[in-house]
């Protein structure tokens, strides 16, 4: 059974067809990429999957459940967690406090006014564990808005991981990063995939990165799926070469 399946999904904004008849299927434990030029509909696709807004038509299935009518917060509880192209964090809170919000939501205690000490200790331990996983332990006490852009993006990924996602959606995880920061993020994504068999679907503009780590790639162009397959198949596809990759292929 596939983890994520989109069947004939379209999305229109007035007369603009942002996505048309998109088909996408993803298996558990895989690392999939979505690429395409600006305006191809990549982020719109993520917004439909994560419940940011609904599809105009078509069906979205996640872990055996049709999720078209399920709101964004409930999709997170089902295991669909995303990051954003422009980093979405809690800027005036510390790194620890940012991640703690997600851990508390995962522990289903966000609404608890008087938690037990045991619960608070468990939450603190889990936050520490996550910070250790993503290499943020030394930054735990720092206010997130004071961090470098690359570290802020890692904080966002850590927050997403706090919800123990079945599928992690990363929208351009290396956007705006320097070489060193990009290398750190790539290592993090690789480790999550290799060690924890984390299923990841990501959008990325860096072709070397995409072709270096993705199991499969879906290419979007003008809201339509132009090609889908392994990196080798996509690189060899003449339509992709003509429409998008050009010299990079």
């Amino acid at each position, binding site marked *: 059974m596939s983890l994520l399946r989109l069947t004939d999904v379209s999305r229109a904004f007035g007369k603009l067809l942002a996505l048309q008849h998109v088909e996408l299927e993803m298996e558990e434990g895989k690392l999939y990429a979505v690429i395409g030029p600006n305006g191809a509909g990549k982020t719109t696709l993520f917004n439909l999957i994560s419940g940011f807004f609904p599809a105009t038509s078509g069906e979205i299935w996640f872990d055996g459940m049709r999720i078209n009518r399920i709101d*964004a917060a409930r999709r997170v509880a089902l295991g669909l967690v995303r990051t954003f192209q422009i980093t979405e*964090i809690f800027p005036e809170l510390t790194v620890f406090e940012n991640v703690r919000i*997600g851990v508390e939501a995962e522990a289903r205690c966000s*609404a608890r006014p008087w*938690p037990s000490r045991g619960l608070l200790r468990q939450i603190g331990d889990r936050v520490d564990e996550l910070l250790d996983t993503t290499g943020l332990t030394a930054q735990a006490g720092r206010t997130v808005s004071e961090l470098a852009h690359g570290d802020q993006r890692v904080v966002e990924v850590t927050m997403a991981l706090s919800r123990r996602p079945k599928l992690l959606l990363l929208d351009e995880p290396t956007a705006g990063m320097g070489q060193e920061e990009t290398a750190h993020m790539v290592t993090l994504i690789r480790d999550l995939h290799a060690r924890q068999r984390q299923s990841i679907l990501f959008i990325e503009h860096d072709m070397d990165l995409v072709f270096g780590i993705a199991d499969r790639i879906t290419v979007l162009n003008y809201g339509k799926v132009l090609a889908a397959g392994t990196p080798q198949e996509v690189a060899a596809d003449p339509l992709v070469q003509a429409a998008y990759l050009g010299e990079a292929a």
Partner: protein
Amino acid sequence: MSRRVYVNGAVWLLLLTAAWWLPLIGGYMALASRVLVYALAAMGLNLLLGFTGCMSFGEAAYFGLGGYGTGLFLTHLTHSTVLAVVAGTIVGGIAAFIFGPLVMRRRGIYFAMITVAIGQIFYFIAERWNSFTGGEDGLSGFSRQPLHFGFATVPLNAVAFYYFVLFFFAIGAGVIALLLHSPLGHTFVAIRENRRRAQFLGIHVERYVWASFAIAGLIAGLAGALNALQNNFISPINLYWVESGNLVIMAVLGGMRSFWGPLVGAIIFVGIQDYVSSYFPNNWETFIGGLFIIAVMFFPNGILGIIRQRAKAA
């Protein structure tokens, strides 16, 4: 010990010993009680405004309802002052709980306008329903009753009433402090910081806004109940949107992001109201307005915000 412990200790020490030092600086106990009443209402509002990030301009509705609940309870049902306070608190809390779903999906100016509209509905009901609320003239004919402890009876004179108010202030402030240090409080702050991120971490934002709104209403109801007892009177003006604006001014002046900010704001507001109005009975609000403009322009995080910034920089 941390700085926070020292600050909290100093605040509670000052409040507990007010009966001794306040007369020495020209103050009086009724003024101190009024400061606590408004500080409590503003702290409740600040849970919504400063910690959840929702701009309410209708908190006076629950403040006034708390007052009417207490007044009507004492007039028609009981002579227990404590029970009347509890009744007023519940009336304010239930009203906020009922109207919460109307506001919880709105943001920014729309949130503010709906809260004003709800408040004005209660204002007009109180103003027009002469037979029940006393109409425009307000509700009188009730008075705070002595406290009976079995072994002793304590009349609520100015000093005793101050400690009576301080007792409920401590409960209200304690509840808010516990909330802010709990996962629920963390969630409120997360919503203030970034609603979208909170939503995409699986938090049903609207439900928490509702919770914050209801708790703020409950605290405002408690403050309103104490206000009615302080004056032995309650009038529609306590429900009016200007009263809501006053609470917002107190929170902003003192510091919306600070736990004690609304207390500082209430001290300044009520102090100016009391002292300046004796010299300029018709123009004292001009001083408040001027101070508010200065605060918004030069220290938007309020007085405690500036102090905290300086302490951080030092």
